[in-house]
């Protein structure tokens, strides 16, 4: 009570009494607070005039500030201030900063680009950015691919060839890998024989007698595997058929199987069902020629191309 009494002695009231003795304390806001509030009001007014603020009709009041940038075609564009224009300005500024490098890449031969340390640094950073944006969804961030779906770009095996020109051709025009379904043509026994033969080519545990039968079948007109994979089973780069004699597997998930039977079974399922999913889109219309060139060198360096 004494505290209350003390307060009533020191604090002003609004000066009005209700019901005889009911009074209201008058505790004004601190002066610094009030002035800060005025400052924020002024700030808001300044902000409204400079930046977009109010909706108006179908659009909005743009404010006085503008963003001007030069786009890649050399045209000067001006927008009223907004974050999208800000992004465009940033992107175009970056594109203009990169342009000398891209121009240099366009003017140089592949061999020259690969040997120039400055260009090499640019390829590693710009190529990585391009790869991450466009290629990584399928081929993965490091280019390692996914067995059964997307080729590994970091190994030394190239379905269509690993020279600069071939990689460039692949990126520009895309690819479509195809293998017919053999379950309709061959008996399960024959498919098993073929699978054992393919396993034997890469030194995987197999049944020798079945492999021998598979060998005959492989080179026969019945299965006609050699049409595409070649008589030596090393594949033909002109049509992108796989080399069956190496340790690299794209479609049959051999590395994941732990037993020899499992590995043969993985091969068997690919022969039986065939393939129609090896589709890589063409990038000619989506990326500029310089970008494709940078990507070509980058991919070439990923796997130590040929």
């Amino acid at each position: 009570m004494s505290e209350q009494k003390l307060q009533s002695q020191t604090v002003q009231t609004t000066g009005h009494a209700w019901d005889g003795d009911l009074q209201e304390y008058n505790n004004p806001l601190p002066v610094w607070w009030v002035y800060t509030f005025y400052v924020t009001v002024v700030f808001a007014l300044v902000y409204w005039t400079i930046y977009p603020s109010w909706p108006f009709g179908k659009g909005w009041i743009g404010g006085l500030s503008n963003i001007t940038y030069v786009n890649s075609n050399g045209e000067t564009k001006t927008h009223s201030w907004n974050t999208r224009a800000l992004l465009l300005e940033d992107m175009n500024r970056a594109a203009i900063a990169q342009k000398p490098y891209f121009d240099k890449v366009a003017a140089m031969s592949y061999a020259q680009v690969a040997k120039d340390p400055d260009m090499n640094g640019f390829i590693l950073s710009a190529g990585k950015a391009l790869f991450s944006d466009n290629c990584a969804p399928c081929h993965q961030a490091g280019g390692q691919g996914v067995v059964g779906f997307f080729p590994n770009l970091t190994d030394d095996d190239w379905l269509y060839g690993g020279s600069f020109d071939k990689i460039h051709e692949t990126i520009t025009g895309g690819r479509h890998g195809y293998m017919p379904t053999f379950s309709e043509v061959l008996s399960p026994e024959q498919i098993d024989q073929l699978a054992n033969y393919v396993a034997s080519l890469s030194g995987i545990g197999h049944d020798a007698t079945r492999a021998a039968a598979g060998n005959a079948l492989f080179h026969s007109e019945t299965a006609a595997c050699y049409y595409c994979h070649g008589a030596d089973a090393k594949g033909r780069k002109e049509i992108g058929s796989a080399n069956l004699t190496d340790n690299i597997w794209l479609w049959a998930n051999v590395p994941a199987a732990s037993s020899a039977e499992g590995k043969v079974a993985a091969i068997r399922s690919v022969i039986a069902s065939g393939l129609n999913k090896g589709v890589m889109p063409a990038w000619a219309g989506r990326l500029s020629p310089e970008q494709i060139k940078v990507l070509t060198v980058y991919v070439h360096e990923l796997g130590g191309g040929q």
Partner: protein
Amino acid sequence: MQTGLEEQLGLYQKRIPIFTRSVKGRFRRFKTTVLLLAYAIYFLLPWLPWSRLDAPSQAVLFDLPGRRFLIFGLTVYPQDVVWLALLLFIAAILLFFVTGLVGRAFCGYFCFQTLWTDFFIWIEHKIQGERPARVRLYRQPWNREKLLKVGGTHALWVLASFWTGMTFVIYYAYAPQLVLDFFTGQAAAAAYITVSILTISTYAAAGLMREQICTYVCPYGRFQSVMYEPETLAVHYDARRGEGAHGRATVRAGRGIVVERRRAESAEPVAVDRRQASLSAGERALAERHEKGLGDCVDCGLCVQVCPTGIDIRDGLQYKCISCGLCIDACNTIMDSFGFPRGLIRYDSEKNLAAPEPTAPRVEWKRLKTIGYGAALILMSAYLAYSIGTRGSYDRAVNQIRQPLYVVLSNGDIRNRYQVRITNKAAQDQTYEISASGIPAGALDLGSFREITIKPGHSGLVQASVRLAPELAEHTHHFELLITPKGKPGEARSETVRFDSPKEAHD
């Protein structure tokens, strides 16, 4: 109608203006020396020339666009950020160490707030005069004299603040060029913004807010009190001696020692025995005071008048005291003039002051905390010196590419890939060679770059790959990658690098 019952209490205390009296003495001399030294370094250092091949000839240049700090012969790159960490650690530990020994020495003598406030008070003193003149000027109404003097003071403050900000900025670019650009309106916007902010903040902090920065704003002053121990030396008023049994008392004019001293001084030239007699006059007067139960403090109030934070040290150790020692100087001056012994206000420890038989104050360092701080200080300083002394002419980083960790090649070989980044920290172009040991010759493939030439201050990137047969890969977990600057085999450095293979990954 009823209005306010009582005057409303303010929520905020208004600043009570402080007009410090100037004083002479040991601590004033020390403070002035530190001030001159610090100002000489801060204001002149950016103008010191230093010849360099590839950079502006400025001894200390924080080259932000070039991402390097040039400090005399030393070039610091972002990779050396650990030096900054060490420096900050050393600075912190030094503060703790010194505070534990002699209290807030940083606050009193070295803090830039103290230095700039001191300088601003000096300007004020030169224009407006000594304390009584300044108090008079403050109280008198605005007229031509007040306008000129106060306006002149503030103008000089703004000028000093501006040059403080300007000096800060010229550490970041070639000084003569930046000053020229600045005044012709061609400098970067960042320069103008920084100078404006520093001008305003220096003017506000050293001219207007002064001790309020120490009292209300600064966290260091507050947390330094945590490092005080009973043995810590601090500015103390010897209350036992000063107050006596019946408290302090002024010396009445026309009586006692003042008269006696005047008499002694007027009798020049004095004989040796007369001089001794005059000296003993002080002792006699003191004995007289002690008989009456009075303390040695003559309550002249000079210690309060000289205090830059406006406190009375006789109230005891307090958080507002920045321990600048000016009250010691003031009190000693008065004690001397009365012929009383010095040191009524002095650097002493709480422990010693409370002791029944106080000894002469001394620095007590034989404490666990102090020794611990000291050891950390020496260790970290030695490490920083070692790290700077043995710095290489280049930086290297070997990163294994982890996507994928390894690649199985068509013949079954395992390949790992690495990115080698070399930063040339020397002043000229340098070629680096990369080789490997612990793996068969030919296993390391560097593509087109068996060696790489890098410009000073730049980085070069080399892709390396290592290819091992499966049997060998299984047993190889690490190998050494050797980077040799061409022509400097002594600076070759090797890096232990990991090698991954499928078998290992399943372990």
